[in-house]
């Protein structure tokens, strides 16, 4: 067994850390929380030039032929840096869905543009019903000759306000099961009938309401097989969840370090507060927590990279990581006290992102239920 990255992945990770320390200071992160677009163009361009946007895509689509373990090495550093921007929505949610389900033409059209930083993409899944179940998909798409008419409201769609394309998960047929009859459409953001409204969120991530008011989409823009998008979507989300967990692991690790650093420096009662056993305990518990979510994520990623079944591992990683990240950042606030409670501090960045990460794509309860089913209960 080997619990660490290989030499090249370590170089990638360390290089990413140095890059983000220079190019993505916390001042920029805080600025982007208020910014409507939330994606600093210079930063996005530089990441494209380094090959990071296309890292996970095959070379023939302009990518770097990287594997998922290369990707999570980068993701950990993005989480540590609290990187703003549409990496999650464009490269993972939208891009990976097209990579795994798109036609050759769609892949050749979209993926190289993502890799070169020229195209922003997102995927509209959830609706006002706030559920990740198939039964929650009510936005409809009615066939009309060679087109479909999409009508309905999607909610909590990341980065729709800057997206060039939105992949809309819509219901085209009523099947015997709620999973049947769902289709994925690649919709041009500029199509008539689309209204995007930016929501105000805890973590400053750009979630949007997207209203589809009788939006016409050619049937050529269906990604994958009509009426059969749900299964493939869930497959894609498995890979996305692993990457998302790695991002949270990086954030949790940094939150822990900030708390420990503060405890070593802060003097109260004539000694560093880090010398009180109660602080030892808080830090030790967080160390164990962070390592747990790290290893669960690593094992899920390794199994995925080996093509082994990993539904259990992904469920465990997602359930644990979201909750551990939240626990760690909350502990960080407790240790930092007042100095961490103003907007000048950095701990709140992790605290906010921990919560949004926990809730996105299913929280601990959701994934414990997935695990219970996998255990045959």
């Amino acid at each position, binding site marked *: 067994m080997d619990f660490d990255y290989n030499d*090249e992945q370590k*170089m990638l990770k*360390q*290089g990413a850390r140095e890059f983000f320390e220079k190019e993505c200071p916390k001042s920029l992160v805080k600025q982007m929380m208020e910014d409507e677009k939330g994606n600093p163009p210079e930063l996005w361009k530089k990441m494209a*030039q*380094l090959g*990071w946007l296309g*890292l996970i895509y095959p070379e023939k689509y302009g990518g770097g032929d*990287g594997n998922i373990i*290369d990707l999570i090495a980068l993701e950990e550093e993005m989480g540590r840096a609290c990187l703003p921007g549409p990496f999650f929505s464009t490269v993972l949610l939208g891009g990976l869905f097209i990579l795994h389900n798109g036609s050759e033409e769609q892949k050749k059209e979209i993926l190289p543009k993502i890799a070169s930083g020229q195209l922003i993409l997102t995927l509209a899944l959830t609706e006002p019903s706030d559920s990740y179940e198939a039964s929650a998909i009510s936005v409809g798409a009615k066939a009309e000759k060679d087109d479909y008419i999409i009508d309905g409201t999607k909610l909590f769609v990341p980065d729709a306000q800057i997206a060039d394309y939105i992949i809309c998960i819509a219901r085209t047929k009523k099947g015997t099961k709620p999973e049947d009859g769902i289709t994925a459409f690649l919709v041009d953001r500029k199509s008539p009938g689309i209204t995007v409204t930016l929501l105000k969120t805890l973590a400053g991530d750009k979630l949007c309401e997207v209203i589809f008011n009788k939006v016409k989409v050619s049937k050529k823009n269906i990604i994958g097989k009509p009426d059969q998008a749900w299964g493939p979507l869930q497959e894609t989300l498995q890979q996305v969840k692993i990457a998302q967990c790695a991002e949270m692991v990086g954030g949790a690790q940094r939150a822990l370090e900030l708390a420990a650093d503060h405890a070593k420096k802060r003097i109260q009662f004539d000694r560093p507060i880090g010398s009180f056993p109660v602080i030892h305990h808080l830090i030790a518990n967080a160390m164990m927590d962070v390592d747990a979510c790290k290893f669960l994520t690593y094992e899920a990623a390794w199994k995925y990279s080996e093509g082994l079944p990993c539904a259990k591992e992904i469920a465990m990683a997602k359930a644990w990581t979201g909750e551990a990240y939240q626990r760690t950042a909350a502990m960080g606030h407790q240790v930092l006290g007042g100095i961490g409670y103003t907007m000048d501090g950095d701990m709140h960045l992790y605290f906010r992102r921990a919560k949004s990460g926990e809730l996105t794509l299913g929280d601990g309860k959701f994934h414990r239920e997935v695990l219970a089913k996998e255990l045959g209960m």
Partner: protein
Amino acid sequence: MNMIVCIKQVLDPEAPLSSFKIDPATNTMVPVTAVPFVISPFDEQAVEAALRIKDAKGGKITIISLGVNLLRDVVKKPLSLGADELILLEDPAFIGGDSWSTAYALAAAIKKVGQFDLIFCGRQAADSDSGQVGACIAEILGLPQVTVAKKVEAVDGKVKVDKVTTDGYEVVEVPTPALITISNELGEVRFATFKGTMASKKKEPIIWKPADIGVDPAKIGAAGRRTKTRKLFQPVRDSKCEIIKGENDEDAAANLAKKLVEVKLI
């Protein structure tokens, strides 16, 4: 252009002082907590200087590093940036030396590499800060040297170097082969692309032992030291702070000016 760059693996100089303590028995710095290893920052700039010439004129870059426990994910970094080859002088006999015995070993390795136009070194190592290895190598190999460079350009078979001085810089022309030491004024070093990083996997480091480069064992490493470290210590810094007061900012500034004249600083 065939270029050689010497790099040194050091404990991260950015680590807080509290991470280290001095071992009086061996007169060395010892890490107290886990401190990561990095390439000495001036050496990273030496690599950057070579890469800039390779970008402009093409050529080959050979990296040489002397030490023990050289972490591959640290010393292979120049390969991910575009260097072509990595040679490691990895043997306990090589270490524990001073600038001279270290330079002697590096010079022998460079001789074995064979043909080269330029050697780049960082101006000084971030741990020992002696700043002499480059100069010693040039001396041993009988090469012209330009130290503390902030810009290096290959021009018609010669090299044009902007050399940092206390109040500016001077432009020096030197024929090749030559040795240049690089200072931080060179500017930002590049980041590795993903492809570059992954490609470095194929470039296995070459490891040379003392026998491979034909050195006299008595002249390398600790055995070959010509200097002796008598004492290594952290100077105690005592600072007194006097706050200059005034009725308002302008008044305080005037009082400060008066004070500075009083102590003959201005």
